[in-house]
């Protein structure tokens, strides 16, 4: 078996022990590749504990800019004895197994189709450093140093990154650079010809891209979107949204006297967190919270209140695997039904679905406008993969002329004007026929505009009523507002890949969020085999008309999502009446980001089943592959 040979196109996985300080070394590795101008996509696959259990960090390098997971591992950096044999066996034939050779490999590690690269990391580190804590941390830097030789990482890029990381503590930079040199020198001396994977600087691919995690991006979106109140409760994987928001606020939201133009309160639970958001939004602030699935369950009661009482609220939902506690540190897209219909009764919530950090920024900022325009909760549906992993992204851009859209919110003067020109103001009067009413903020007017907000049935003037007619009018108006919402949603991204849209390609694929990158890659691969599939990346629920048209225009639409029960497909069938046979599911729900390999093979199997050439489930079933 020939060793794998590739420049700027491979997958490397680091197998570490959680809590051993590998994260900063691995981040340094990925950042160095990014700074060489090469598209890189790092992903953490980590356990839900602090210390001791296995953790992996998978880095995909791809010149073509494919940033989803590919599938398979070309090089394994194995520093965890617990998983050594498993890691060994997961390598693709021709791959490279980089391990700590201070101890010999286990007898079970016996493949002749891979290249073994043993470097005595522990011994080298112990020989050079005396401080036990430092030894542990620097052992990881030593392997980065060794990789710099094996993979041709520019050494100055690494040392510059170390200098930047420790610019406030330069004394710590010295041992880190020493550790890099130790690894590099050892590898150079012993493995001059060992590795045919290499990295080569690129000048024109990444342009002005940034490398950032989705949670930081969402936090910036909230900052730029004008959020002034955040109530929150810590939960993986959303915690860093608020932590980043606080970090940015401490720089950008200070008065001259140092007081803060923001209130961030850690609540006692998720119920209270959303209660704070609703109270603040009702009182005219832009407010948000960040949570994950279990938090959404707790917030359901308040989501129903905000929907029925028509109070804006923004929730960043960084999804993780469920149900219940599920796998708290693994990713999924499995909160769609729970959020779309969160709360009892006939409740429907607006969902926005970003696929990269730039969209986390943009859609979170947009969520505040939409929540106020629609006077309803808006949930930004991120996930762990997007939220907690670094991604290459378009840079953030803000239009300095952009005003906050406060929707139909009347000041005292506007209320006077309203009543002069129209009719007596009523909180729930549908004056414009779009289902959206005019609201006032407490304290806005000395004599007019006050009303009573409640989750109980109310008439057009916000008075409590159990009159069936008034209740039905309110519910139908809320549905009208839902129809209006469809016209405000972000457009889907549609690519007709057939020569002409009118050519009538029967095949379409629909995906959303972090499924996007692997889906595009898979469909590109199929195109090379002359299997042409048009694509649509959905960015919201409800779907705007072009999304509905896209599905109508295709005979079969593959719906690619990361959950067991085909939740988006269910929503599409329930809300738009598509025939179930038309929507064919491709489902991944193993907790790890979906791979292009999986999608490619699944699509092929479905297509083969459609033509009856193999025993795959028939397309019409829409079930699992």
């Amino acid at each position, binding site marked *: 078996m020939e060793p794998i040979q590739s420049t700027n196109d491979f997958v490397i996985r680091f197998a570490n022990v959680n809590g051993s300080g590998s994260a900063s070394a691995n981040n340094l590795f990925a950042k160095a590749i990014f700074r060489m101008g090469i598209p890189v996509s790092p992903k953490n696959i980590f356990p839900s504990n602090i210390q001791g259990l296995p953790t992996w960090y998978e880095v995909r390098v791809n010149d073509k800019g494919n940033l989803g997971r590919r599938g398979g591992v070309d090089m394994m950096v194995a520093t965890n004895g617990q998983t050594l044999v498993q890691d060994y066996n997961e390598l693709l034939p021709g791959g490279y197994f980089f391990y700590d050779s201070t101890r010999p490999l286990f007898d079970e590690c016996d493949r002749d189709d891979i290249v073994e690269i043993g470097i005595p990391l522990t011994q080298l580190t112990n020989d050079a450093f005396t401080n036990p804590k430092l030894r542990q941390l620097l052992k990881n830097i030593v392997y980065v140093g060794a990789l710099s030789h094996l993979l041709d990482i520019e050494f100055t890029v690494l040392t510059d990154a170390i200098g930047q990381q420790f610019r406030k503590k330069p004394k710590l930079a010295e041992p880190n650079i020493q550790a890099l040199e130790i690894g590099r020198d050892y590898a150079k001396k012993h493995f001059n010809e060992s590795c045919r994977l290499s990295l080569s600087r690129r000048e024109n691919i990444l342009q002005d891209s940034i490398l950032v995690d989705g949670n930081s991006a969402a936090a910036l979106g909230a900052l*730029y979107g004008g959020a002034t109140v955040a109530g929150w409760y810590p939960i993986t994987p959303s915690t860093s949204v608020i932590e980043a928001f606080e970090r940015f606020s401490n720089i950008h939201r200070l008065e001259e006297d140092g007081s803060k133009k923001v209130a961030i309160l850690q609540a006692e639970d998720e119920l*209270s967190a959303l209660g704070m958001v609703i109270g603040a939004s009702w*009182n005219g602030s832009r407010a948000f919270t960040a949570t994950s699935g279990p938090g959404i369950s707790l917030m359901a009661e308040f989501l129903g209140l905000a929907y029925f009482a028509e109070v804006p609220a923004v929730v960043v939902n960084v999804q993780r695997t469920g149900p219940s506690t599920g796998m708290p540190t693994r990713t999924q897209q499995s909160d769609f039904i729970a959020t779309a219909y969160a709360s009892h009764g006939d409740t429907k919530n607006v969902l926005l679905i970003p696929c990269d950090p730039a969209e986390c920024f943009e859609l979170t900022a947009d969520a505040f406008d939409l929540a106020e325009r629609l006077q309803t909760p808006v949930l930004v549906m991120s996930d762990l993969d997007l939220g907690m992993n670094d991604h290459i992204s378009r840079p953030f851009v803000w239009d300095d002329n952009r005003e906050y859209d406060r929707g139909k919110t009347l000041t005292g003067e506007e209320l006077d004007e309203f009543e002069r020109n129209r009719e007596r103001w009523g909180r729930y009067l549908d004056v414009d026929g779009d289902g959206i009413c005019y609201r006032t903020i407490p304290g806005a007017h000395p004599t007019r505009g006050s009303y009573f907000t409640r989750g109980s049935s109310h008439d057009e003037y916000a008075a*409590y009523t159990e*009159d069936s007619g008034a209740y039905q009018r309110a519910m139908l108006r809320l549905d009208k507002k839902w129809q209006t919402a469809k016209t405000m949603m972000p457009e889907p991204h549609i690519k007709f890949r057939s020569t002409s849209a009118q050519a009538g390609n029967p095949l379409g694929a629909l995906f959303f969020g972090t499924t996007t990158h692997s889906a595009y890659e898979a469909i590109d691969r199929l195109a090379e085999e002359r299997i042409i599939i048009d694509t649509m990346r959905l960015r919201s629920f409800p779907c705007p008309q072009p999304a509905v048209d896209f599905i109508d225009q295709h005979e079969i639409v593959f719906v690619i999502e990361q959950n067991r029960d085909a939740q988006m497909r269910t929503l599409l069938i329930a809300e738009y009446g598509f025939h179930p046979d038309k929507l064919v599911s491709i489902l991944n729900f193993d907790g790890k980001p979906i791979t292009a390999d999986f999608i490619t093979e699944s699509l092929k199997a479905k297509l083969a089943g459609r033509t009856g050439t193999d025993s795959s489930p028939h397309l019409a079933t829409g079930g699992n592959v």
Partner: protein
Amino acid sequence: MSYTRPTFRHPEQQKNSKGYHRRDYEGAISTLCAGCGHDSISSAIVQACFEMAIEPHRVAKLSGIGCSSKTPAYFLGKSHGFNSVHGRMPSIATGANMANRDLLYIGVSGDGDTASIGMGQFAHALRRNLNMNYICMNNGCYGLTKGQDSATADKGSAGKKGKPNPFESIDLCEIAIQLGASFVARSFSGDKQQLVPLIKAAISHNGLAFLDVISPCVTFNNTDRSTKSYQYVREHSEATGTFDFIPLQREILTRYDEGATQTVVMHDGSTLLLEKLEQEFDVTDQRRSVDKLEEAKERGRVLTGVIYVNPASKDTHDIIETTPRPLNSLTREDLCPGNDALEKINNSLR
């Protein structure tokens, strides 16, 4: 439909210093049972706000769910109100207060709302010392679901169904003091002479002012021993004999001086011994305040009056150091760092 009061008032009705009549502080007509103590508390809130010349539109009134939580509809009709969900008033009030620190926040809750489903939110509003008046209209039972014991019902007391409560009760004032409330008082709904000044003091306080107001439930604190019990009335009433008949009763009123004890006969014939704190008591001594409550309890008395005050109180905004400007008044120029700052952030990510 909602009930509204007739608009006619005597033309020579007194105005306060801001030019408002007392009627400007009233709300819709109450739909609570006749004689309900909650209506007396609503009336005391109206009186206190009128006398303090608080501009009605500068008040936000918030509540949870339950009989007591309906009352914000019955006072301050020109203020914005928020009737949220069961036990969650404190978080709504917290958010509202964060958005605009310049309004007066009156939170109304009940003993079910506060001491059971909302205990968590109550506790955390206390420890954050949110600047609001938190009034618990405490009748020891769940009125809207027809009389179950609440967590403040005394151990051994029998509710409508006649079964003595087997569990210890929660003393909200003691908890409030221990959790950091900076103003704690207890009163009786029928003692307007005491209640109105207490509400005024609470309004003047910077921080969370907690008022636990004993407020008899005319309908469900009857026991099967009472001739006014629900069951008795149903069995003996020839007038309607309907399931939902609720006897009209008089509001219980009382009046007594500081340091004195007053016996109050409740609707079910039981008695309540109210003891008004003497003026000399040092209400700034947190530990002594809790002792005083316990001592009164041992003597079978319900201590009323201001029980604890922290004169150096800092509210949530003070603690987290927010700007003196209301956050909801900040504009895009105040809030948005702009594209130049964003470009610097982009550069830090390259």
